[in-house]
């Protein structure tokens, strides 16, 4: 038994040394969950951009119906969507897949698995201790609590080493493989978000252009509504309708800025993913950068929510 213990101590010492020198950067345990959160917020905000444009489109179509009802009446075929559900779904599916990648990455690299393993190893140690204290076992062999503890620690070190080894071998490679899809996704979404029209009302594209157009159309319909009904409105109702006009102008600007910031956050996400790869290879801590990205994303998200409430 003594030889057995000596052998285990030697293995244990070797393992502890190996684990301490070969495990993935400790920063990764902290960085990946922050990165996953940043991805979740950025993808949610991208979905928010599509939602806001679609909702505003429906609002303006309803405004047009109100203004034109006396002459055009209503036909259910007038109810349309801006984006074909299939086109929207293609984008949402990719955004969901990106979120799954980030959450699986966070799960694989988190300390939680190691803690879970430690817990299970402790249970294993307790079972071993219980076994060695039984009279039947003591007739076959003898083992002290110290010996059991050493064996348990050795098993724990071995298991941790296997977990860390697997992560060290695969994570940088998988994050590297995702660099291009993440960059390309951001690029496509940025193209979708596009630009607002310039001061001459040209050069716009994508969702920003569409949203700007919708707000402008909304202003036109509101003015037309006031023109048509102003003589029949009481002063308060008339004032309330007129007050909506400058509000719409301000909302158009702030809504456009939110889409612009969503696009900028996507560019930062690509940089963050690249920084994450660096962090797996070196011992860099990029948690502060990720936290800034999360705060910015949360602010954009809150804005989308407020826009949807206003509308």
């Amino acid at each position, binding site marked *: 038994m003594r030889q057995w213990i000596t052998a285990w101590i030697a293995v244990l010492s070797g393992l502890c040394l190996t684990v301490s020198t070969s495990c993935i950067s400790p920063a990764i345990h902290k960085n990946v969950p922050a990165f996953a959160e940043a991805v979740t917020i950025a993808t949610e905000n991208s979905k928010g951009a599509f939602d806001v444009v679609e909702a505003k*489109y429906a609002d303006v179509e309803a405004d047009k119906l109100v203004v034109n009802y006396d002459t055009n009446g209503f036909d259910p075929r007038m109810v349309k969507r801006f984006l074909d559900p299939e086109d929207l779904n293609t984008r949402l599916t*990719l955004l969901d897949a990106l979120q799954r990648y980030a959450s699986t990455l966070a799960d694989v690299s988190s300390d939680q698995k190691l803690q879970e393993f430690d817990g299970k190893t402790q*249970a294993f140690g307790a*079972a071993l201790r219980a076994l060695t204290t039984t009279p039947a076992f003591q007739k076959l062999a003898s083992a002290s609590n110290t010996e059991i503890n050493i064996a348990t620690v050795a098993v724990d070190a071995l*298991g941790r080493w296997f977990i860390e080894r697997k992560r060290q071998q695969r994570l940088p490679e998988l994050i590297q493989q995702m660099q291009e*899809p993440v960059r390309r996704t951001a690029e496509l979404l940025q193209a*979708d978000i596009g630009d607002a029209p310039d001061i001459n009302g040209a050069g716009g594209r994508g969702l920003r252009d569409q949203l700007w157009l919708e707000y*402008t*159309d909304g202003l*036109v319909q509101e003015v037309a509504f006031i023109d048509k009904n102003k003589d029949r409105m009481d002063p308060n109702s008339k004032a309330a309708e007129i007050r909506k006009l400058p509000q719409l102008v301000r909302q158009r600007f702030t809504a456009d800025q939110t889409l612009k910031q969503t696009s900028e956050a996507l560019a930062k996400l690509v940089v963050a993913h690249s920084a994450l790869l660096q962090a797996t290879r070196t011992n860099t801590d990029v948690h502060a950068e990720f936290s800034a990205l999360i705060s910015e994303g949360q602010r954009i998200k809150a804005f989308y929510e407020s826009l949807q409430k206003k509308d």
Partner: protein
Amino acid sequence: MDSSQQAVHDAFEELHTALTNAFFAASPGTEKDRLRHAADAVSEIVTSLNREDLKSRSADFASLKNDVVLVTKELTDLQASINGIVHDIEIATSVVQAIDKGLELGSKFFV
């Protein structure tokens, strides 16, 4: 959107801006209504062009999804193999507990 499509888009968008500016400047009446209807019609064209622009990227989004799913699948395999190590220690604990029980029962019969 390629440059020729963008040029068409810009032309209609400029027209829309001109029509809406004229609408806001006009006094209520038939002419103002006409400007609104014209602006609405041009707005529909710009909307269709924006819709087509987005549609033109849908295939790229679909193909990218496959790349993301592929890497996530490999991550899930890694996750399963780590879970396997955690599970192995659970099995080892059960084995020790079974030995414990076996020895206890055996001692009743054979000792």
